[in-house]
């Protein structure tokens, strides 16, 4: 989750010093912020991605003062018309990044403000902007821009301008390949159409979403800003410019509108700050919250979250919010404004439903009970395994194994198809523990399957291992027979036959295949393998003690419960 750094003393000033810093700290979680760290005056908070308006301290302060009842209702923003006009070209720009919004603002840019603007821009780029693919923001020094500004697209890679951080002009081709921004974001413009924002003199403000121009760069001490937001979605462009406009206005900037003339010649004023609306259903809100609020109480609560109620059935929502999708979203706003702390639990209604455990899992519990009674200790391993464990499996065909994409750790790359490889490998790392080591694991294994809707079938297996100087075929066979008798239905239908697969972990000739007869005509399923682990396997995993083991597929017994 994104993080914002706050100053408690500045937040107290936003709250007109009517609440102290301790109360502020205490209240941050109640507007949905997670406190990550507190150091003196500075607090780092994480905010949820549904609230891009929390990407600045000012945005958070706006909600906080509402919760305290210091300023409530929709914040009033009305901006005078400024000198800037953007003409949107009628050409290909509509196919690549059609929407543009902008504002201009008078404010002296201090070091602190510059830091806050960059942090907010970064958060918005990554969040609502989906790493600039959907929204990109440019901050510019407006005093060097001569209106009108033109927004157009070019396919000409030899088009050149002075990009941010360069001392001379370079071509688009050059920027795409030789700047970090170009390499990081050029995939967004893979169509080969490049949006350009340039002023009346041809000075390039930016090539969104890749890089800004150098000439309009914002430095500390600049006294007026021009901000552009380009997007593939109108809604996101509107939300983003409203977030920036309200933030700048809250920190004291004189924000002015920019006239945008679109490709049909229609003109709109940006930023649009008029509230949006959503149907308000008091009965629905009361039903969800389990409360009995009247209209006025609900209205007061909504005002504390900086929303408002216009009429009985219409809530108004500031432009900088984009998370109110459905009338139910207003229930949470009411709860927040009412104060989560003031809402008390209500006894749950009586029910005739009775609880019960899952029969399959109960059968697994019985198996665990039986094997524990035989003296075995449960280990749990991961369902994902590395190349090494995977190579120990008895099915060596590589198209049989299931692999995940782009794992972050090579130890977790294959879905295991057997339990024994990981269990044995784990034991090789506990060779300093006293022997005998008698362990078991119950867990799922994974196989390809045409019948399954996901193409993967899951089976519940049990693996049981004895590592001891005395471990033999006989020792594990005795355990298996006792286990089968205790935990498996119709254990009399189990039979053994020699198992001689040289690529399995078991020693050929000293291991048995376990079968379960499924009908009277002698048809049977192979359900497991049991025996001594081969010296070659033990050497490979680094165990210097005899091991005997069995692995059994429990599905024939589970699927009938």
């Amino acid at each position, binding site marked *: 989750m994104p993080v914002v750094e706050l100053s408690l003393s500045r937040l107290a000033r936003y709250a007109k010093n009517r609440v102290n810093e301790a109360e502020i700290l205490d209240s941050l979680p109640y507007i949905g912020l997670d406190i990550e760290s507190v150091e003196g005056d500075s607090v780092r908070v994480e905010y949820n991605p549904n609230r891009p308006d929390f990407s600045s301290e000012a945005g958070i302060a706006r909600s906080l003062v509402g919760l305290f009842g210091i300023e409530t209702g929709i914040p009033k923003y009305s901006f005078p018309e400024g000198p800037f006009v953007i003409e949107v070209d009628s050409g290909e720009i509509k196919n690549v990044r059609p929407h543009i919004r902008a504002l201009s603002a008078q404010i002296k840019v201090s070091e602190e403000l510059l830091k806050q603007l960059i942090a907010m821009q970064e958060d918005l780029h990554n969040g609502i902007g989906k790493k600039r693919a959907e929204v990109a923001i440019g901050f510019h020094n407006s005093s060097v821009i001569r209106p009108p500004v033109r927004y157009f697209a070019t396919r000409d890679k030899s088009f050149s301008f002075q990009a941010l951080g360069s001392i001379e002009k370079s071509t688009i081709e050059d920027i795409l390949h030789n700047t970090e921004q170009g390499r990081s974001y050029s995939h967004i413009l893979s169509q080969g159409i490049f949006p350009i924002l340039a002023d009346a003199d041809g000075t390039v403000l930016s090539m969104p979403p890749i890089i800004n121009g150098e000439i309009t760069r914002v430095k500390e001490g600049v006294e007026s800003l021009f901000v552009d937001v380009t997007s593939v979605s109108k809604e996101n462009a509107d939300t983003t410019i409203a977030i920036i406009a309200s933030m700048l206005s809250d920190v004291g900037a004189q924000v002015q509108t920019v006239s945008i003339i679109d490709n049909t010649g229609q003109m709109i004023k940006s930023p649009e700050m008029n509230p949006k609306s959503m149907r308000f259903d008091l009965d629905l809100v009361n039903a969800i919250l389990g409360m009995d609020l009247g209209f006025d109480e609900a209205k007061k609560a909504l005002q504390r979250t900086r929303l408002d109620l216009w009429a009985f059935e219409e809530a108004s929502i500031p432009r900088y919010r984009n998370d109110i999708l459905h009338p139910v979203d207003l229930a949470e706003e009411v709860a927040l404004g009412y104060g989560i702390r003031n809402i008390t639990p209500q006894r749950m209604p009586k*029910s005739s*439903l009775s609880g019960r455990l899952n029969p399959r899992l109960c059968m697994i519990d019985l198996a665990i009970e039986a094997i524990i009674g035989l003296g075995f200790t449960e280990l749990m*391993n991961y*369902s*994902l395994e590395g190349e090494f464990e995977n190579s120990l499996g008895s099915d060596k065909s590589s198209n049989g194994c299931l692999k995940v994409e782009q794992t*972050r750790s090579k*130890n977790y790359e294959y879905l295991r198809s057997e339990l024994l490889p990981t269990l044995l490998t784990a034991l090789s790392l*506990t060779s300093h*523990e006293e022997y005998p080591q008698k362990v078991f694991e119950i867990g799922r294994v994974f196989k390809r399957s045409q019948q399954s*809707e996901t193409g993967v079938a899951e089976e519940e297996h049990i693996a049981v291992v004895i590592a001891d100087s005395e471990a033999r075929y006989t020792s594990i066979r005795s355990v298996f027979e006792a286990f089968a008798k205790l935990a498996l239905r119709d254990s009399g239908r189990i039979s053994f036959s020699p198992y001689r697969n040289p690529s399995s972990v078991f020693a050929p000739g000293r291991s048995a295949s376990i079968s379960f007869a499924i009908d009277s005509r002698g048809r049977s399923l192979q359900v497991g393998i049991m025996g001594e682990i081969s010296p070659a396997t033990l050497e490979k995993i680094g165990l210097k003690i005899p091991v005997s083991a069995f692995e059994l597929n429990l599905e024939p017994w589970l699927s009938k419960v």
Partner: protein
Amino acid sequence: MSSSETEKAPLHPIERTLISALARSGTNPIKIDEIALQSSLSLDQVRRGLEWLRSKKLVEIEEKEERFFSLDIEGKKALTEGLPERKIVRLLQGSGGSALLSELASKIEGFSAGLGRAKQNGWVKVEGERVLLLSNFESEEPEEALIRRIGESGKLSESELSKNEITALQNLQRRPEFITEVRNKQTMVRLKEGVLTTISTTFPEEETIGQITPEVLTTGKWKRFPLRELDVTSPVPRIFPGRRHPLRILMGEVRDIFVSMGFEEIDGSYVQSSFWNFDALFIPQRHPARELQDTFYLKEIQANLDKFASEVRAVKATHENGGSTGSIGWNYNWSEDEARRVVLRTHTTAVTIRYLAEKKPSEARVFTVSKVFRNEKPTYKNNPEFHQVDGVMVSKKLNLRTLMSVITKFYSRLGFEKVKFWPTYFPYTEPSMQTVVYHEKSKRWMELGGMGVFRPEVTAPFGIKNPVLAWGLGLDRLVMLRYNLEDIRQLFGPNLGWIRTISLS
């Protein structure tokens, strides 16, 4: 037993064998497994015999625990490629001394840890979005030197490390998958001075009965010879019981709590289509949780959603424009191909939503306790696999306040008496809260789980009409709290020593 009595007790044959084995190295300390080798006694016999000898003050025993360190995957990588901070320096050198943060981050694994160290070392500084190379970067930092040393010798024990190297080691251990640590206990034994000369006079040999055997009983030998006295205070061989994994025990408790509250247990597949794991829960297809770096997608396979054709239609419409749910939706083009990608489920809610979609109950209480997956590098606090419980309730008269009471009851049965609620965000619930509980032992509030009322965008496409309350929490952290584990990685895998001996009380 007074010391004079001890001295008179005759020596057991095992003790005599041990003394002669020890005598071979004079009074120098030797390792316990070496004694076993030389005396042809079992390790258990050696241990027991040595305890008797110690109580007779004939030997000195010293227990030494040694920690050994070797390189884990990342450590091995750093050995050949350099640590992330070194990679940063090299990249910066190659790009004229400065680069964009985002570019470095995309090229270097473990970038943020590396950047932190590079800054501390004074190699680089960050200005805005750029990283600048400073001087001094030629000097080798202690971590690099240590990785080289461990790499050369394969494994180093704690006693071989200098003070500075230990600090470097601790730094490396904080970074995931650099160092593996194995603890090894070593028992050293030596004969006390002068034992050999006094032994024959102090401990005369006489025939006694050491063990009551069937033969001793049938021949009546016990009437002619005395039973040798045992030292009942000396240690005995350790044995270990068969037992459940501590997590299994907690899962059992959670299952009992749910059943006692009238809930039915359900179960489902670990492998799910994105449709059930994400789309059905109104998680938009461009949501960051769905990216490759957070979720395990299976290679080369696609789910078949044919049997859910009508559900797929309804979910598509809901995402795109709200469909018939009364929502405005997420306003994008929903792709069925994306929904067919196969994932290792990232939450157990994938199981509960499937149950609801299938049964469309007007009243229900169900839960599931099981494993989930996230594509994360294992660290002391995150594991790529962990466990969750998920509960849902469906009924006409349910609301946020009833949810609060169910949760309060649930957590109090788990042993958390103080619970509070903070608002939070999940794409599939509204309102959404996180549950914060007070942990008495550590005297602090901690976030433990999430809860909420399912959105109409989740329930309506499946024809579920009544309100659905849902909540979930992770279990692994609870197990860690209960047994004071500090590293979540110790919960699974090669931890037999811990599982065998951890006290459950």
